[in-house]
């Protein structure tokens, strides 16, 4: 019995302690509502000036502006809370050509609100709901709260900070600005300009031009009807389904673009670039990040330092400059020009001329419709299916040319040269190298006037030759078949072989 009584006493003591603690930490919250409806005059715009709370703005087809505000105050006692709540005013009044909705907080003097001495114990917020005519232009300023705008069918100028800015289903020219929070736009018939800092931007289904300026965050644009310009830094940029030209400047983030009906210009730094499905021309520049492309309708231009360049399908010509990264390009309808440094180059299926320059890298070429020019150093060159002439200059690497339909000119040092000629037509051949062998494969019934010279090596021919001049093992002048077509082979410290096609 005594035990039971003790338990009850203990529980009551705990209960009372809880009560006292609750009282010590007690706060009073007071809220009051403000409601006002005003008819907007013809030609009048709406201006909202607010802070410390959310703004939700909707529109309707009528002329009324309906304002509802929920004023909330927290204080250490009910009287203070009520007093401050009563002093927070929502002004709805015309000013110039606009109807102004303004939230006025009591002015602060010295270190606090007028008439309140326990300043640090007061806190407040006001949430604003506005319903306004859809055709009235809007100017809105807010901070420290979210802003949501729906169905505005007139121009808007919205600025927020420290709160998400959401804009939906509008029309007109929209200017949206935010800081330290996201901007989200879904649907606008007209142009949209967005400025943000330290907050992401996500825009979709805008029929006009989209211009975005942001920093330190990601930017995603989907279906900008007339393209746009994006300037960002330290964040990823993604553009999909643009109906016009797109221009992107970025740094320290990946740029991804797909399906652009127009031209594309990307200037990135320290970030990858990926562009697919551009109907116009594409200019892709970056550093320290791979450039990937596919299906570029017109001219392609790439500048990439310390970056690889990989892609296929270019409707017109391609120009690529890079360093310290491989270049792998195929299916270029017109000509291609590549200047690389310390870059292996692989090119295939080029419709017209191919001009390739690099160093310290293998150059591999397959199927070129025009003339092939390769300038390499310290790298091998391997080419086949060249429908015009081939001019190759390199050093310290082998040169293998197979199926060249035009003249052949090879200037090599410290590397072997092997060339296979096809067809009976005259294809002048000039090959110079040193410290390695020269091997030329010639069709059975071809005719060449051969001038071959070497030192510290031998000259061998599969073909019977009509010799003219002196005969020696390191120098030979004579004709294969009827002669006529010039073949000049010069080697230092290497042998020269003239073989029949198909013979190992």
């Amino acid at each position: 019995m005594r035990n039971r009584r003790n338990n009850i006493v203990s529980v009551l003591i705990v209960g009372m302690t809880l009560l006292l603690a609750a009282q010590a930490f007690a706060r009073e919250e007071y809220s009051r509502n403000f409601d006002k409806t005003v008819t907007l005059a013809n030609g009048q715009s709406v201006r909202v000036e607010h802070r410390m709370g959310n703004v939700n703005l909707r529109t309707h087809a009528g002329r009324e502006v309906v304002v509802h505000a929920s004023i909330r105050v927290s204080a250490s006692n009910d009287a203070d809370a009520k007093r401050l709540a009563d002093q927070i005013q929502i002004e709805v009044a015309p000013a110039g050509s606009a109807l102004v909705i303004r939230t006025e907080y009591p002015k602060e003097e010295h270190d606090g609100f007028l008439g309140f001495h326990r300043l640090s114990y007061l806190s407040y917020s006001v949430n604003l709901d506005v319903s306004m005519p859809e055709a009235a232009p809007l100017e809105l300023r807010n901070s420290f709260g979210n802003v949501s705008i729906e169905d505005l069918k007139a121009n808007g100028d919205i600025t927020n900070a420290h709160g998400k800015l959401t804009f939906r289903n509008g029309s007109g020219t929209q200017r949206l600005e935010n800081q330290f929070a996201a901007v989200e736009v879904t649907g606008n018939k007209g142009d949209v300009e967005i400025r943000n800092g330290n907050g992401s931007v996500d825009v979709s289904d805008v029929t006009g031009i989209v211009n975005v300026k942001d920093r330190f965050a990601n930017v995603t644009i989907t279906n900008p009807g007339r393209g746009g310009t994006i300037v960002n830094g330290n964040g990823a940029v993604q553009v999909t389904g643009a109906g016009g030209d797109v221009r992107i400047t970025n740094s320290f983030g990946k740029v991804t673009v797909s399906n652009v009906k127009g031209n594309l210009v990307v200037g990135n730094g320290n970030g990858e670039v990926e562009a697919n499905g551009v109907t116009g021309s594409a200019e892709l520049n970056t550093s320290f990040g791979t450039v990937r492309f596919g299906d570029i309708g017109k001219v392609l231009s790439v500048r990439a330092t310390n970056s690889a360049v990989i892609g296929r399908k270019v409707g017109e010509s391609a120009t690529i400059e890079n360093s310290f990264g491989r270049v792998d390009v195929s299916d270029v309808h017109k000509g291609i020009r590549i200047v690389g440094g310390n870059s292996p180059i692989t090119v295939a299926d080029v419709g017209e001329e191919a001009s390739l320059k690099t160093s310290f890298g293998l150059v591999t070429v397959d199927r070129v419709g025009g003339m092939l020019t390769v300038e390499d150093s310290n790298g091998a060159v391997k080419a086949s299916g060249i429908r015009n002439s081939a001019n190759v200059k390199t050093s310290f690497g082998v040169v293998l040319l197979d199926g060249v339909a035009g003249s052949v000119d090879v200037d090599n040092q410290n590397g072997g040269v092997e060339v296979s000629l096809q067809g009976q037509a005259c294809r002048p051949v000039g090959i110079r190298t040193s410290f390695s062998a020269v091997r030329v494969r010639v069709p059975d019934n071809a005719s060449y006037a051969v001038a071959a010279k070497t030192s510290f090596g031998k000259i061998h021919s599969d073909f019977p030759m009509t010799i003219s001049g002196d005969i020696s093992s390191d120098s030979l002048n004579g004709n294969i078949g009827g002669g006529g077509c010039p073949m000049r082979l010069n080697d230092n410290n290497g042998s020269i072989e003239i073989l029949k096609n198909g013979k190992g």
Partner: protein
Amino acid sequence: MTFDCKDLERALAVPELLPDAREHAKVCDACRRELWLWSEMSSVAPGLREEWETPDLWPKIHQTLAAQQKAAKRNNVRFDWRMLAGIAAALVIAVSVFIFMYSPSGHTPAAPRDSDFLTEQTLKEVEQSEAAYRASIDKLSRLAEAKLNASENPVAIAAREKLLVLDSEITNVRSTVAHNKFNAQLQTDLAMLYRDKQDTLKEILPHAQSSQ
């Protein structure tokens, strides 16, 4: 010893074999390249070592341990149903007394259902956490900023700029918070700025170290 390419891997593990490997590499391109790569890796690897501040790691571990201990204790305590009923009854009485004593007799303010404000207790906790967080970030800043300021690396330049923007905004928001301390939205905004600064410092620290 007649050194062959297949002995190279063993030579990299047994230092005594290295002179033979080097001799062999003079006439073997493949082995020379392998040896060069190993030597490069050996010199670069120590520079890749990274250290960073984890101010919230120990509190989290501590919190988890405390929670586990609490759970274990809870499992060990056997409540008598009569005791539970007693506590419940006492609480009902206490709450009834509280409502009776403190509910205002006249005007009843329309109390917001979902509060936008912190309680005294929550604010106290938030302010304590903020102080600890700031101390930790300041420490991280001291570590990174000296190196950042000396670096002309583009990553460091961008980070410096971002940190300046964040510091300026933290000052602004703090002064706003000082007049509206219990506003939960403001406290959240301030916390997000601190977190952004911490993330930036953590992200930049390896770059700052490597650019030295």
